[in-house]
């Protein structure tokens, strides 16, 4: 072994730089991915919460609501509004502004009762949201080339209906 080679092997200068260059990138990428996953989890939690709020609204306000002069948005509008309000802080937030939910789909399973308005069965809501991964590097790793993930959650609530018909109908 030549003296030059022996000197290179023994040299300690730059070792930290090399070590840093090798270790930092994976660590940084891992950190960014974890941060991205955290934000994604928060977004998923938000959608789940919104679905739960929405399905309760669906169960409670979907059927006839006599005794109340409903000049507001109307049942469907109010159910959508429930999702909007629950998602509002996240969709309106600067640092969490990466998520957009679609119109919730409220389904009533009337198989347990004779009518579609009876007090029985289950209301189910499927709420979809599109989450755009926003953290560089991690967005591709976590969310793929499209940098977007679709969150689809499902919630259910006992239907709160009544067969009786309001006066107006």
């Amino acid at each position, binding site marked *: 072994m030549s003296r030059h080679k022996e000197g290179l092997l023994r040299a300690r200068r730059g070792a930290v730089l090399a070590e840093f260059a090798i270790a930092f990138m994976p660590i*940084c990428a891992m950190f960014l991915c974890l941060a991205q996953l955290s934000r994604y989890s928060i977004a998923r939690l938000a959608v789940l919460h919104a679905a739960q709020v929405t399905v309760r*609204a669906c169960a409670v306000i979907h059927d006839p609501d006599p005794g*109340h002069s409903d000049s*507001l948005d109307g049942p469907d509008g109010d159910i959508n509004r429930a999702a909007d309000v629950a998602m509002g802080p*996240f969709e309106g937030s600067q640092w969490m502004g990466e998520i957009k939910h679609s119109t919730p789909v409220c389904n009533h399973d009337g198989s347990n009762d004779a009518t579609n308005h009876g007090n029985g069965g289950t209301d189910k809501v499927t709420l979809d949201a599109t989450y755009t991964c926003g953290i560089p590097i991690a967005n591709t790793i976590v969310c793929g080339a499209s940098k977007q993930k679709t969150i689809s959650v499902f919630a259910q609530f006992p239907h709160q209906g009544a067969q009786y018909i309001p006066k107006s109908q």
Partner: protein
Amino acid sequence: MSATTMTLNQPLKNDRRGAIMVIGVFFACMMIGWMWMLVGLGDAMIWRDRSQEAADAVTYSSAALQAQAMNLISFINILMLIMAAFYLLTAFIFNILDFLHWILGSTTDKACFPPPGDSSADSRSKKMQALSSIPIMAWLKPLASVWTKLAAGVEKIHDGSTNGTPSTLSVGGILDKYESGMIFLMPKFSDFEDLVSYAAPWGGTVAGIYMSQQYADYGQKRIGLALSASLIPATFTPGQAGSLMPTAQYKACANDECTQFLNCDSANPSSCQQYTGGDKREGLPVQIPNGGFKALCDYIGAKISSVVKNAFQGLGIPFLGTIMGWLMSFIGNQFSSNFCTQNAKGFFTGPEVADVFLRFTTAWTPPFGGHNNNEKCPKNDWGQGGGGATGGPKPCNGVYQMKLGNGKQFWQDPVDAGGPHLVVDYAMNGNDWFQVWGGVWGGNRDSSQAYSVQHEDKLVAVAGMQSNPGGTWNAGLIPQDTLSKWDFYLAQAEFYYDCDQAWSGSNCNSSSNASYNIGWRARLRRMHGLSWGQDLLGYMWNGSLGPNSGLQTRYQQFFKNKFGNGMASKLGSTITSAGLTWLVGQGASFIGGAINPASSVPDFIH
């Protein structure tokens, strides 16, 4: 010098070790922060969802218990209805038998004179036999030959041929025992319904409080309360209008206030409406109707009429169903008034029909025989003197006028005897009388602790909106700080009669099917803010209890009473009447507008 000593002695600026660790610590801190926030958000969402669940549970528990209570009341009403139906059937059969027995006479009231050993039935048979010798009356002969047998048969069914108190196996005996059972059981049923209607709303509130205690987070219990209008009864004397709520109790002509100007005066008594109303609601929106137990007979008549009408309408013949409905309604009313009133005497009440027939068949001579007739009517005819006397049986007309053990009336006495509990007229599905509002507070960690949900809950929204007429959504989200206002969660539930028709329809009205069917249920409803002005004060002011029942009427009548007579003597009654009516109308509008604003607590999605 050891390696360790060397390391420690190296200058810090030349120390390259641990450089990655600094970054690692930074990353780790960041990650802990992210995780902390994630956990906090999850906690905040769970806390809010749990709070809403708790509020739902508190409210729904109360509504469900009240619905169960309404079902229990309906069930007892049905029991009463069955008892009343059996009574009507038995009473009607007895009524017919009693009439026949009266005409045919008794076979057991044999007398020694005249003629010796003849009963009243024998006597009438012989008179008829004699009458049949006249050519134009020959048709009576076959009737005369079976007369005594007929009389014996009827008598056996009527009273068991006892010539005294009816035997147990006769219709009269059954009616006797049955009436005793009715006057014992049915007032007890009514008392139990009183208990249920007063206790159920408070039971619901207690159930709500208990349910709220079951929702504890972070070791902190929630406190919840369910409130409903049914908690406050309008009367504490079942069957009698209470004075807690506004009632116009002076509309009867006999009342002093009714003799005042513009209310009712002696010169114009028709201007004074007989108003015996007032709120008789007992906690739950039920009351004993004025007719007391007579309401059961009324309902049976109405129901039979409805069934017959529908059956005949099904045949497709025009107007047949309607005509049969009217006919059955008329018959039903006759049954109710002839068997279910304080003065009930059954059908064939007047002596005319029986007497004419009797005199005709006995050649217009008084019926002899039966001198030792000792018959007694069931329940001894409630002191009416029916039964038997010299000359044959007498009708038991008083047997339908039942009396309680203390001598008070059974029929049409809602205060002493009670009655079925029917839904009050002003309570309709969906209105505030069937609503329960509930709320919970707490379940969060103490704010002094570092870890409580308020740190992240600003991101967990609560939806609210204004509920003014033509209501609009709040433009922004409601602040979420649990330490300030939104630590309190609300819910609304209702109990309702699950009728598949419009509530205003005849089959769903308050004193009809809703009171006699086990169809009450509970459900959560969208949270509507209680409109104090429109609902509560409106109830007080406008009077939801029928015409002229609210404070408004009291106010108007106060002014009319105060100034009416004096002004009328100076200005004349016409001018005074018109002037005062206008003035008090203006005042009523002002006061009504002031306390009846179209405002309420905002509605909520949750």
